[in-house]
């Protein structure tokens, strides 16, 4: 169990700035996800926390103790590497027992702990085998097992599911949640996969170019992205960002002029008041918030460019007045259309977001 606080952590590799001042607070017992595109600084952050890398600047505190100068061995953390880093010449049993051997534990206790952990992760049948003869999922579970067996105060997971196939990933996501509920250990989990981040994180930190841009719950991250970058990282298919211009002084209040329609600006009245007329804005429209409307109804005309059936839903790539838009419809609806068809669309949801075009920050 541990509470973790990073302050202004920096780390460079030569001219590459991996971390440019990372501030982070992780609560005791929290399942915390570090989410960001590849090379954003996730792995470096975890390695700094584990002590495998020395930060250039900033502080790292666990339970109020400054970890600067504390060697890896005495940090009492366990890490699961993206490559699993299983010991190739040891059996599953020996791999699991490895962290225990240094704890001056009695042989019988090691044995029972190993069997317990193996059972928990359902790899008992592989105890006498070496990692190379295990399947991807078994290797993954073994790597997790080696981390949890010691009951450390902090787990660090570095993209543990990236090397697995889609089906396994799905199963393992649930596994992680289950494990966390059972063990309750503070966990920091790095992933480039937004679905993974949203589905398992209690709180998520979005990291980009070595900086944390937003820390929030999955729901709020989706609903209230702090800027256009976070908005485009969260949500699948990604949010539509359409350029628009602010119009003030109309009878009905502020409005945003989009190439294919005019958007009522009243929901953002307060935020828009501070802006000048003619300000360039980015309107973020979730693909789920667009709807097809009846022929001859309201809405704007659009042409279907591509249909992407996904099983239960179909993604339609549209073009409205030259603007590319993505929307999601039920599979049965999608099946009625093919590329080249003309449709009419309308804004149906309330999840539309406004961002300043130049800085990308959200308009409240």
């Amino acid at each position, binding site marked *: 169990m541990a509470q973790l606080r990073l302050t202004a952590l920096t780390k460079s590799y030569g001219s590459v700035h991996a971390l440019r001042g990372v501030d982070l607070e992780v609560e005791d017992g929290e399942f915390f996800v570090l989410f960001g595109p590849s090379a954003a600084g996730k792995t470096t952050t975890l390695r700094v926390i584990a002590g495998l890398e020395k930060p250039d600047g900033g502080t790292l505190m666990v339970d109020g103790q400054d970890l600067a100068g504390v060697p*890896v061995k005495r940090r009492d953390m366990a890490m699961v*590497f993206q490559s699993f880093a299983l*010991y190739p*010449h040891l059996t599953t049993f020996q791999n699991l027992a490895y962290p225990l051997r240094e704890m001056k534990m009695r042989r019988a206790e090691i044995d029972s702990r190993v069997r317990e952990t193996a059972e928990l992760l359902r790899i008992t049948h592989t105890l006498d085998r070496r990692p*190379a003869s295990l399947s991807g999922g078994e290797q993954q579970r073994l790597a997790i097992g080696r981390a949890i067996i010691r009951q450390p105060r902090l787990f660090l997971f570095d993209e543990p599911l990236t090397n697995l196939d889609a089906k396994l990933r799905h199963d393992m996501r649930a596994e992680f949640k289950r494990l966390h509920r059972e063990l309750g250990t503070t966990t920091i989990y790095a992933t480039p996969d937004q679905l993974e981040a949203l589905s398992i994180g209690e709180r998520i930190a979005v990291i980009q170019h070595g900086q944390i841009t937003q820390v929030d719950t999955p729901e709020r991250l989706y609903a209230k992205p702090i800027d256009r970058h976070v908005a485009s990282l969260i949500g699948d298919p990604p949010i539509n960002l359409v350029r628009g211009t602010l119009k003030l002084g109309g009878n009905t209040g502020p409005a945003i002029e989009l190439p294919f329609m005019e958007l009522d600006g009243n929901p953002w009245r307060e935020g828009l008041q501070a802006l000048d007329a003619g300000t360039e804005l980015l309107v973020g429209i979730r693909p789920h918030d667009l709807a097809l409307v009846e022929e001859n109804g309201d809405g704007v005309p659009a042409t279907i460019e591509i249909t992407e059936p996904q099983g239960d839903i179909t993604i339609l790539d549209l073009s409205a007045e030259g603007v590319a838009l993505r929307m999601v419809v039920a599979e049965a609806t999608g099946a009625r259309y093919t590329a080249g068809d003309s449709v009419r669309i309308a804004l149906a949801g309330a999840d539309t977001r406004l961002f300043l075009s130049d800085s990308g920050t959200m308009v409240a």
Partner: protein
Amino acid sequence: MAAATYHAEHGTLLERFFARNRGPILVAPALAVLVIMNIFPLLWSFGLSFYRYRANRIKEPEFVWFKNYQKVLTDPVVWERFQTTAIIVAVDVLLQLVVGFLLALLFEKTFPGRRVLLMLVLTPMMLSFVAVGAFFRYYYEPTFGLLSQGIKAITGEPFILLGSEVGALAGIIFADVWMWSPFVMLLVLAGLVSVPKHLYEAAEIDRASWWRRFWTITFPYIRGLLLLAILFRTIEAFKLFDIVFLITEGGPGTSTETIAVYVYRVAFQYFKTSQSAALGYILLFVVIVLTNLYLFFVRRRAEEEP
């Protein structure tokens, strides 16, 4: 291929012959050299080992079946030489492994001047045996040799290393270790750098001690190469001739006379040509047995690996 086919069907008889047999013709010179310089003498000496024959007498060779082998194997001198050789091989190879291993551990890390130092350490391996032999002969020389001079500066007495049996053995072994430890180092170093770095990191997080980390992670990666190093060095040490001959000529007395030096003496000083051929073949047999023994272990290891 098209051109070859063309020539095979047209042109003069000679042209056609060359076009059809281009491959064999190209290999022929190398094969000829191999047969004349290598295979023929090998077979000839094998045949010779069954005759009574002395290269310095004009006398018809006489076929004596296995008499030479019988004589050689019952000769107590041969067994004595085998013993001398065994001592040298055991100590020599062991020291090479230890020194080579320590060097590899040193050069695995990066430090200023590593490249230059590595080059210096590798140099002995590339020298010729004659150079190394001559070098150490002067080095151990009692009147002006560096070793003797150094000890004289402390004790006031010149030091004759090669005067005693143990000293002579030590001198030979030291020279060979000096020359061949870098070879072991290269092999071990190759193993060391092949260990994935993240395994060390995982071990660090798992709080493994240096000792455990070495045995469970590092050692498995160098085990195979270490076996190879032992194999190569044992075979080479078993045949040790040049350095011994140049430094001690087998002396003092016969205390450093290895089996290879003995074969030379039997052949070119006692001129028991056929007997030396027999002994040479016994030597070859031992080396082949050793090789296969090691290969057997290496293969069994390979099967154990995932």
